[in-house]
């Protein structure tokens, strides 16, 4: 039984597949969000040093991780769309950008609100903060460049260039705390050593990371379905879909 890998690379079949998957991810996002917030506020203890302000970590870290991860995923799909000329891949990259930009803004916003009580300042030109700000500009650049070009296929190609060039910024953000060792502290959680965090705090944070993943997938699939309908409105399958919807 040869698996047809390209079955879901056609917008029509992907449209129906993603339609079925969205409710699952919405459900998982809500469940993990409630669990994460409960652990974060009612189970995790007060921090001996930071008191209660540290509870911002339950959205600051997921937002920061998502901002970097979504950019890499966006650049990947933009690259695939550029290389193989598959328009659905480019549609997916276009659908990821707004959610990535939102998480980048949230990482900066929650970071500033955490920095004020802990560092005594909203903003400092620290290596990590500055490279995250550049990431926000890259997202905005990607979205505005694509919006400025009328022909969607040309906009996809132009966007892919910005996305691929900007990927170099992601390792810079990640390693900025070691290379420049400025104000922002190093990684308390990494794959190769024990986390420097209390277990309940870590569990709460990781559940919130999963919640942000589930949310991102649900929202991005929801947006890509609208983009598919926008760009495929001249096709027969959309006309038929509309007839079915009208008949309902």
């Amino acid at each position, binding site marked *: 039984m040869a698996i047809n890998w390209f079955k879901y690379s056609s917008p029509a079949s992907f449209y129906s597949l993603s339609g079925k998957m969205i409710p699952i991810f919405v459900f998982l996002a809500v469940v993990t969000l409630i669990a994460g917030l409960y652990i974060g*506020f*009612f189970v995790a*203890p*007060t921090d001996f040093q930071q*008191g*209660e*302000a540290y*509870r*911002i970590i339950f*959205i*600051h870290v997921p*937002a920061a991780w998502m901002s970097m991860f979504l950019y890499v995923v966006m650049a990947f799909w933009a690259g695939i769309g550029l290389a193989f000329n598959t328009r659905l891949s480019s549609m997916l990259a276009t659908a990821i950008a*707004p*959610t990535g930009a*939102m998480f980048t*803004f*949230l990482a900066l*916003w*929650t970071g500033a*609100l*955490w920095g*004020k*009580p802990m560092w005594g300042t909203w903003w400092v030109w620290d290596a990590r903060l500055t490279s995250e700000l550049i990431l926000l500009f890259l997202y905005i650049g990607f979205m505005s460049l694509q919006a400025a070009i009328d022909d969607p296929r040309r906009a996809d190609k132009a966007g892919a260039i910005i996305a691929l060039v900007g990927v170099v910024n992601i390792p810079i953000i990640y390693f900025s705390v070691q290379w420049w060792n400025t104000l922002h502290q190093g990684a308390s959680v990494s794959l190769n050593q024990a986390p420097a965090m209390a277990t309940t705090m870590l569990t709460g944070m990781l559940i919130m990371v999963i919640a942000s993943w589930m*949310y991102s997938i649900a*929202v991005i699939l*929801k*947006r890509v*379905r*609208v983009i598919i*309908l*926008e760009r495929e*409105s001249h096709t027969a399958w959309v006309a038929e879909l*509309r007839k079915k919807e*009208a008949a309902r």
Partner: protein
Amino acid sequence: MNWESWSEFFAMGGDGVYVWGSYFVTFACVIGEVLLISNRRRTLDKQYGLIHDSNKKEINNETSS
């Protein structure tokens, strides 16, 4: 259970402004994003409806005249 009362919960050890400022903006962005997408879908449906109706009118005009 960390909090004895709701007021203590909202005071958040004196850092309430920062903690709730972060959480409020986060949920505002999340809800805003979801509304934007459904709004985008609704305008698309309306546009499609208009094009579809105008096509029908043209067909009726051609056949009836």
